[in-house]
């Protein structure tokens, strides 16, 4: 559209393109999808494709699952501003997830589940909508039911503090796509962390009830915090190859930020231990809580019912 056309609400009505989500005769051109063109850079020399794809998948799943959870606030947050803020945070994370899953599929094309011939579903959507729960590599913290506002704020604070520190370092990844999306994502995460940290302090110093709920939220989430900062074999491998970051190295960045927020909020550093896995297996190993299967059932049902994108 040009300026003249933008002033005319009827311009483009009869044009059959992405203005229409389900335009008849719309030709799907996967190789021309704007996102697809952003993730095709070659994998750096010597990098193991399976390990690199697993790393992208893991970071993408964290963002995808939290984005889906935060979207549950759309239309029902305490007020309009927070409703919009939570939806925007969800959208940023969904954008990061899309790039990461698309990069995972570009690195290892065997990763996305196969679909019938002629299916228009792009690789990142195959990963999001056609994988079983055990194929998801996100930490369990992001999949828990969305909870109340204090729980959501605390989760965004913990997650964005960790992910911002990670992305600041990931911007130096040998993988050019990971480096670029981390540099971009860090700017978004800085806004998410600020939003959550200010609300955390506000709720802590608000009413007895808001403080009670905040402390309950922190106590409930803390056992899952450890899973973010402990190093998983996928991360060991990715760090060794120079494409990823060992989360153990992030503690020096992450703890001072949380200490700053907790001190301002007059909240003590929690002393609750980690939630155990099942025979040692946790979210990054594909071992999840029941909440994820319920969330995926809702998130995936339409795509799975119409794998060709036609009805």
């Amino acid at each position, binding site marked *: *559209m*040009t*300026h003249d056309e*933008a*002033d005319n609400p009827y311009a483009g009505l009869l*044009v059959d*393109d*992405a*203005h229409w989500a389900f335009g008849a005769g719309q030709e799907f051109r996967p190789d*021309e*999808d*704007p*996102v697809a*063109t*952003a993730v095709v850079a070659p994998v750096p020399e010597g990098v193991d494709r399976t390990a690199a794809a697993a790393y992208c998948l893991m970071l993408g799943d964290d963002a995808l699952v939290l984005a889906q959870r935060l979207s549950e606030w759309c239309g029902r947050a305490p007020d309009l*501003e*927070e409703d*919009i*803020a939570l*939806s*925007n*945070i969800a*959208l*940023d*994370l*969904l*954008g*990061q997830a*899309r*790039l990461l899953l698309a990069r995972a599929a570009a690195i290892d094309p065997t990763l996305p589940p196969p679909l019938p011939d002629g299916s228009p579903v792009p690789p990142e959507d195959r990963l999001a909508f056609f994988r079983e729960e055990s194929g998801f590599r996100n930490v369990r913290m992001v999949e828990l039911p969305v909870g109340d506002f204090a729980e959501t704020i605390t989760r965004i604070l913990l997650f964005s503090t960790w992910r*911002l*520190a990670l992305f*600041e370092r990931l911007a130096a990844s040998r993988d*050019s*796509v990971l*480096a*670029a*999306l981390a*540099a*971009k*994502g*860090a*700017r*978004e995460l*800085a*806004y998410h*962390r*600020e*939003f959550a*940290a*200010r609300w955390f*302090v506000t709720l802590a110093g608000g009413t007895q009830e808001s403080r009670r709920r905040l402390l309950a939220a922190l106590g409930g989430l803390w056992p899952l915090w450890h899973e973010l900062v402990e190093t998983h074999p996928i991360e060991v491998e990715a760090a060794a190859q120079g494409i990823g970051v060992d989360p153990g190295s992030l503690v020096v*960045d992450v703890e001072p*930020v949380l200490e*700053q*927020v907790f001190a*301002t909020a007059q909240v003590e550093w929690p002393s609750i231990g980690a939630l155990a896995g099942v025979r040692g297996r946790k979210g990054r190993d594909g071992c999840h809580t029941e909440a994820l299967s319920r969330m995926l059932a809702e998130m995936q049902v339409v795509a799975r019912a119409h794998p060709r994108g036609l009805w």
Partner: protein
Amino acid sequence: MIAAREVAERVVDPELPMLTLADLGVLRDVEVDEAGTVVVTLTPTYSGCPALTTMRDDLLRALRTAGYADSRVQVRLAPAWSSDWISPAGRAALTEAGISAPGPAPERDGPVPLLLLPTRRTARCPRCGSREVALLSEFGATACKALYRCRSCWEPFEHVKEI
């Protein structure tokens, strides 16, 4: 025939139609390759920008109408888009449309410090010009905007965030 670059530079943003893609700074490059294909390079404002596909279709249609049958749009992620890339003409168009233009983007050097106080900006009300403005929310109707209210004329307005 108008140069492909000129054609692409006239295409407007789907969500901020007072700005061309060039004014917004997302149009990074327009080149013609050896095969004669026009290759347009975009850098999205935010990772989850839902308008990319629409931008691509608007660009391809404008180029086709101008006689460039063979063209494609590619996305470049690095360097990341900055609000500093909005042109002076773009800033004027934003203000004209009642949207406050961003100030300078924060310096990026080392870890981002966390500020627990509301973000201070020297925003002006685009309607009455007052500097007495209050932040309502860091997030607006699109990912790239914050919500403000003017304390002088009491009108709410949007501010394009510094990023």
